């Protein structure tokens, strides 16, 4: 088992469409995390930034950009990019530095200022880029992939549009309780059904928006935490950053085709399932030990897919688990107690860090009206474009 690192502080800039730059959001989140940790920025030995490709040039060097905004103080710096999984990679980079003794205290920051409408690839004529190709050749936006997965679940597992709508109803009710969420209004199944179809069978309220927002964490060695007076901090016990195994037979964003299984048998279990399995193995826990899960609900149907990929239920049983109320507040395993992406909208480099912020507040018992009673073990899960797994397990 890998050693643990302490979560000394967590902070966010609220999600929304604020019309300002990502550096400002990130700096607000960083200062909130530092204040929460009771750590002076000048005592931080390393800063890791999760990059935004949409924030422009400074976004590609996010670590240094945030360090400059907070005031140069000579800290070691790193910047990472892994699409939606960037935040988990940033957490993992910080963890590796702490566990190897390179740094005692590390600040992790991710922030984004999202454009209006569909995400699109970087400009120019770039036929060697799969992300450019899927838009040029097929007009395949992110929601069309979500639509393909949703339709496949309906055909194979019998999920219904009503099941998908109930995911939104659940998450919107939780988001209404979260001061950092962008959407803080409860939603009814009728409102989901009345919203416009974006990519059949999914409607506008089945699909997460894109948002401005920022999240930050102050991580430290267990030894530093003790010296700092944090006797019983939330601890990160596992960070999974696995890649797929060939042949990857599930059509993944942004690909136009899957790998062929004609010459090599696919591994048992999908890529998404392997993301969680690696985290469970590293943490020495299983799905039965979880108090809560924060999963990447880019669409309502994808939240159901994660139930199965995390092993919360068997394959094809996610809608049943939802209907039983197991993933709602008070259920056996509440999912997206934060309100999820349904209530936040995605701020790409911040989102996986925000998931860990929610685990931190839940495990501290400081999540207010959305508190999961007696939370001891939490997991986050997401998947970044181009083959980036992301899952964090935190305990207390």
């Amino acid at each position, binding site marked *: 088992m890998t050693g643990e690192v302490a979560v000394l502080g967590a902070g966010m800039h609220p999600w929304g469409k604020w019309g300002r730059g990502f550096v400002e959001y990130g700096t607000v989140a960083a200062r909130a995390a530092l204040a929460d940790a009771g750590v002076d920025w000048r005592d931080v030995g390393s800063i890791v930034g999760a990059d935004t490709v949409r924030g422009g040039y400074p976004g590609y060097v996010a670590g240094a950009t945030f360090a400059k905004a907070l005031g140069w103080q000579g800290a070691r710096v790193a910047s990472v990019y892994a699409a939606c999984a960037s935040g988990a990679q940033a957490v993992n980079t910080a963890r590796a530095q702490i566990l190897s003794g390179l740094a005692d205290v590390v600040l992790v920051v991710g922030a984004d200022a999202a454009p209006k409408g569909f995400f*699109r690839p970087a400009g120019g004529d770039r036929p060697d880029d799969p992300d450019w190709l899927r838009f040029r050749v097929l007009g395949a936006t992110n929601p069309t992939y979500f639509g393909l997965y949703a339709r496949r679940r309906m055909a194979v597992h019998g999920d219904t549009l009503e099941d998908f709508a109930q995911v939104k109803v659940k998450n919107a009710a939780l988001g209404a309780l979260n001061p950092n969420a962008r959407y803080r209004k409860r939603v009814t199944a009728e409102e989901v059904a009345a919203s416009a179809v974006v*990519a059949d069978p999914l409607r506008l309220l089945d699909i997460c928006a894109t948002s401005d927002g920022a999240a930050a964490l102050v991580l430290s060695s267990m030894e530093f935490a003790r010296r700092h007076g944090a006797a019983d901090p939330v601890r990160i016990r596992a960070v999974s950053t696995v890649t797929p195994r060939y042949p990857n037979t599930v059509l993944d964003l942004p690909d136009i085709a899957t790998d*062929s299984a004609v*010459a090599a048998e696919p591994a048992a279990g999908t890529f998404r399932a392997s993301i969680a399995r690696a985290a469970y193995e590293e943490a020495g826990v299983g799905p039965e030990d979880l108090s809560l899960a924060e999963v990447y609900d880019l669409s309502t149907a994808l939240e159901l897919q994660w139930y199965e990929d995390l092993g919360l239920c068997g394959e094809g049983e996610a809608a049943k688990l939802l209907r039983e109320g197991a993933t709602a507040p008070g259920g056996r395993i509440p999912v997206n107690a934060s309100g999820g992406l349904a209530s936040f909208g995605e701020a790409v480099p911040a989102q996986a860090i925000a998931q860990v912020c929610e685990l931190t507040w839940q495990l501290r018992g400081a999540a207010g009206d959305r508190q999961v009673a007696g939370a001891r073990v939490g997991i986050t899960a997401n998947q970044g474009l181009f083959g980036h797994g992301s899952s964090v397990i935190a305990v207390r």
Partner: protein
Amino acid sequence: MSRTRTPVVTGWFTGEGEEFRLLGTRCSACASVFFPREDAFCRNPGCPGGDLEEIPLSRRGRVWSYTDSRYRPPSPYVSDRELEWRPYALIAVELESERLVVLGQTVPGVTVADLTVGMEVEVVPGVLNEDAETTWTTWHWRPTGVTA
């Protein structure tokens, strides 16, 4: 003025009418098939590495899943902004002998209401968009029950 017919991507498909095929590559060492084509390296981690030769893919497959695009996709997708947006369907098609899934647009006129998972479809030549000099060609999927 006649436009030049040019594939939107070079080397991904060939032929006309009944002879139209998607083109992939196959590794001479391990027989792995790749679409979009790999020409420089075999991606099977258990393969010592072989030559990659071009092969036509199966003409027919079955619908793995489908969806549509109710809103105009952003650039670099090309569409006439003067015209009202007309949604098109996208199908992910499972090719049995190659054991892979390939995405594509349906032929014009086929909507999600015409599709079911498991339905047989075939690949046909199609037009993606036209500009002053060029007709950009692509592949389309068409249910085999449809003759139009």
